[in-house]
């Protein structure tokens, strides 16, 4: 695992998410896409570290610290273990993995924010669904450039 390249990639995604995509009402969650990428293509311990680190980066540009670190870490780890059972290599599977992870992680973030006393918007499900769908549509196409940057060989046709 090339940790320096990982740090650069995460910083770039964080800055883009906080600046370039901030003006869009419905936007893809680049950090969530990267979460699924590293959960699928790294070994379990690396997946745990990358999941929590990506969650920490998401918290830096979020409303409060903590919720996304916990939810990204939890679902990133779960996805890494799931990948041992179901290969998430094909684009269709990646679409569903990103979509379901976005829905579950987003719901947990709102729940943890609620525990902390932060307000919950009235139409969170619409916002969650929009972000999950947009991320799932865009995500699989970002896996190739991410793999190129991280020097990870990916094989979409099945298990290695």
């Amino acid at each position, binding site marked *: 695992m090339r940790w320096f390249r990982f740090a650069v990639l995460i910083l770039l995604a964080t800055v883009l998410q906080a600046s370039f995509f901030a003006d869009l*009402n419905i936007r893809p969650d680049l950090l969530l896409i990267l979460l699924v990428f590293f959960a699928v293509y790294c070994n379990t311990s690396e997946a745990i570290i990358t999941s*929590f680190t990506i969650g920490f980066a998401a918290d830096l540009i979020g409303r409060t610290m903590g919720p996304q670190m916990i939810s990204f870490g939890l679902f990133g780890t779960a996805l890494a273990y799931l990948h041992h059972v179901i290969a998430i290599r094909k684009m269709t599977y990646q679409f569903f993995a990103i979509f379901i992870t976005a829905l579950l992680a987003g719901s947990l973030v709102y729940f943890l924010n609620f525990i902390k006393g932060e307000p919950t918007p009235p139409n969170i499900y619409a916002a969650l669904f929009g972000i999950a769908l947009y991320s799932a549509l865009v995500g699989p196409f970002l896996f190739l450039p991410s793999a190129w940057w991280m020097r990870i060989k990916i094989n979409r046709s099945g298990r290695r």
Partner: protein
Amino acid sequence: MLFTWFTLAGFIFLFSPKNLTNKFQFAFHRIFSWPLSIGRNISLSAGTRRPLGDVVSRDEYKRLLNHLANVTQQRDAEHQNVEKLAKMRIIPGWEHMGFVFADVITVSIDELRSELILNRGEDDGLVKGQFVLADNSIIGTISDVDARTAKVRLFTDPKSSTVVRIGGSDWLMQGKGGSLARVEMIKSKVKIGTEIMASKRPGFLDTPVIIGKVARCERNAEPLLWDIVVEPVCNIQKAENVHVIVMNPPK
């Protein structure tokens, strides 16, 4: 074990006081202010159109309209003072106010939060509760501040409550997320487009200043009452700099 330690760290962050965890967020925005500004400028440039020859841009028009609303309000307030024939010397409200110019580092407006990060902090005289102006209208208040950075909670943020003046009375306006705020249980219907002024607040605002305008007026669950939906009078998402109102600044 790794998972347990990281989860514990996450919960420590979750339950730590916000003034401690804000330091991480402020540090990130301060360190990466340059790339964040570039990204934002690219995003804004992509949505900007060149204005036609002899007309002003929409943003300039809104700024001038807000200035007109504020000056009209001050004129009406001064007329009332003259009518009362106060024997003491009257000092216009703006004379006690100083303004700190600040650049906007990032803007975050969605259903859950409406916030700005500024490149000014306690070292520049900013404190919590100060009002923030953009295009001559109030957009929010300082919610968190450290030495060199400040967070502005916009009046449309779900956690925001602002006292506003409608029909000669003070009402509480609550942020609803996105770009809207709401005032509930008003006794009479308010015309769409009516200007909403933020009420005076001792120590923070000496004269009413425009904060929004009525976008919709809806029936409340109570039959004789109305709810109004307020929208900003400036394009906050495109704001590149703001002014923070500092009362009685040191000379």
